């Protein structure tokens, strides 16, 4: 962490930027606290009271909200865990070991960054139908595990770790897997945290795949469920409710970010001490 002081001009710019970041979010929260009827045709009403929690009550009133929240948590946590395991293993393999076709396979993985998900979603859907995986947790989790970015990120990160560390451990007679598990993995905690946050966010907010894969309402994720619960023209007649849904869906991931942010900073500070 740097200690020198930021110039006042720079501070002013950063604070202005922060205001631009926050204004729409504050606006969203204010709208979510207003009665729908008051906002019809006049969203400016959100700037003053009275405020109410009725929109949030309505979210919990929707019979299956808690089920959708659970589904989202299972899918996002499952995806995150899977990505961390698969990408750490693959990253170690690509960064440290030599094996036949290593470069070719790495390029193949990088190609994934260029594949628009909308381009493969229909063949993917057919594949999952053949495997009878729709309306199931594995069906919702598996597509999220094929992240080229994760492998690339972990590979780059592991490459930056000095090789002397594993060489010393190898001399002590440790197996490759043991070196990976005991020596390298603990050093990648900051990268793991960043990748975890990124994966969790992506999975939590994913819309199109769960929309066409989870078609039974007890398997909906929160994004799909909240969309299904909306009535026509919610933007005019149910603006407050819509915004409450937005806040409600975002709060869990914001909490996840806050938890991980502390870890990232600690891990980074730890790395910087060396």
């Amino acid at each position, binding site marked *: 962490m740097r200690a020198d002081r930021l110039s006042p001009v720079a501070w002013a710019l950063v604070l202005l930027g922060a205001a631009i970041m926050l204004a729409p979010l504050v606006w969203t929260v204010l709208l979510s606290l207003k009665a729908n009827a008051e906002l019809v045709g006049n969203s400016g009403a959100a700037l003053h009271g009275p405020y109410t929690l009725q929109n949030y009550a309505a979210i919990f009133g929707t019979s299956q909200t808690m089920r959708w929240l659970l589904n989202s948590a299972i899918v996002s946590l499952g995806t995150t865990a899977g990505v961390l395991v698969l990408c750490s293993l693959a990253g170690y393999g690509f960064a440290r070991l030599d094996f036949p076709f290593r470069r070719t396979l790495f390029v193949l993985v990088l190609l994934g960054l260029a594949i628009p998900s909308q*381009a493969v979603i229909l063949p993917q859907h057919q594949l999952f139908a053949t495997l009878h995986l729709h309306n199931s947790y594995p069906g919702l989790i598996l597509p999220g595990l094929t992240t080229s970015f994760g492998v690339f990120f972990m590979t*780059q990160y592991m490459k930056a770790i000095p090789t002397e560390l594993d060489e010393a451990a190898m001399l002590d007679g440790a197996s490759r897997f043991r070196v990976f598990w005991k020596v390298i993995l603990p050093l990648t905690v900051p990268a793991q945290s960043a990748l975890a946050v990124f994966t969790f966010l992506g999975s939590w907010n994913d819309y199109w795949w769960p929309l066409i894969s989870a078609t039974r309402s007890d398997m909906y994720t929160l994004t799909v469920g909240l969309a299904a619960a909306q009535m026509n023209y919610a933007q005019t007649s149910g603006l407050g409710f819509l915004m409450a849904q937005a806040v409600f869906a975002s709060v869990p991931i914001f909490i996840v970010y806050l938890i991980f942010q502390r870890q990232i900073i600690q891990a980074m500070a730890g790395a910087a001490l060396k």
Partner: protein
Amino acid sequence: MSAGVQRRWQGLLFVAPFLLLYCTILIYPLLKGAWLSLYRVDLFGGGTFVGLGNYGRLFADPVFWQSMANTLLLALMIVPLLTAIALALALALNRATRGAAILRGVFFSSAVLSVTIVTLIWRFVLAPDAGLLGELWTAAGWAPLPFLSDQSLVLPALAVTTIWWSVGFPMLLFLAGLQQIPHDMYEAAALDGAGRWTTFTKVTLPALKRTTILVFMLQTAAQLQLFGQSQLLTAGGPSGASRTAVLFLFESAFGRWELGYASAAAEVLFVLIVAVTLTQYALTGRPGADNAR
């Protein structure tokens, strides 16, 4: 099996679990898409082999070209600016104070939102009649700008929305990159009496080269696939001025059930993204190679 051979294949064991899933769930559908692009086919089977017919039709379709041009323009507007802003923020907020920690959270906060929510919020910022900017413009005595219905304003509007939404993650990557710069490099620079600017250009920037290239390439690949903002804010309008390539293929596939045609568009976009990122890779000195050590 000799120890040498065993070691040679050991690496494959580490990458195999990922690659198996990756090939089944991503590469196989991609190849299937390439195969489908040679057919006139909808979602319900059958299909007629048309060779390169879909591609011929695509290259003669002005709507497709418009969507490709929009996509490239958006990437040009978004990627350099987004990278610069993220870098500036990382430099400003890479300090151990409580205020910096809070501000890092603030600049990351938009990244937790889904695209549906982002577009919902920004509609209320950009719409001339009810939007935040409209109110500000009116208060300043100007006529509100129709950001979402003017052909020359709509792409900048989408770009701003996207930058607002996406700035958090590149900032994190830059912060991580800054953390990896050894402290003694700064001490050495200070001993040499280097000023702030010299330290920045001679120490910080070179050390961040890999991260910068990483951010740039990732963002290029991601923004060339921009979809939700365009679909949800403007439905590609007005007159297709904000239709992106992915929205084009989405409309072909889900709206018109033209699976073969949509697949052809997807293949062209895929090749374009590979070409652009490979060019960047070649021009910037191969960040994937071991030049850092």
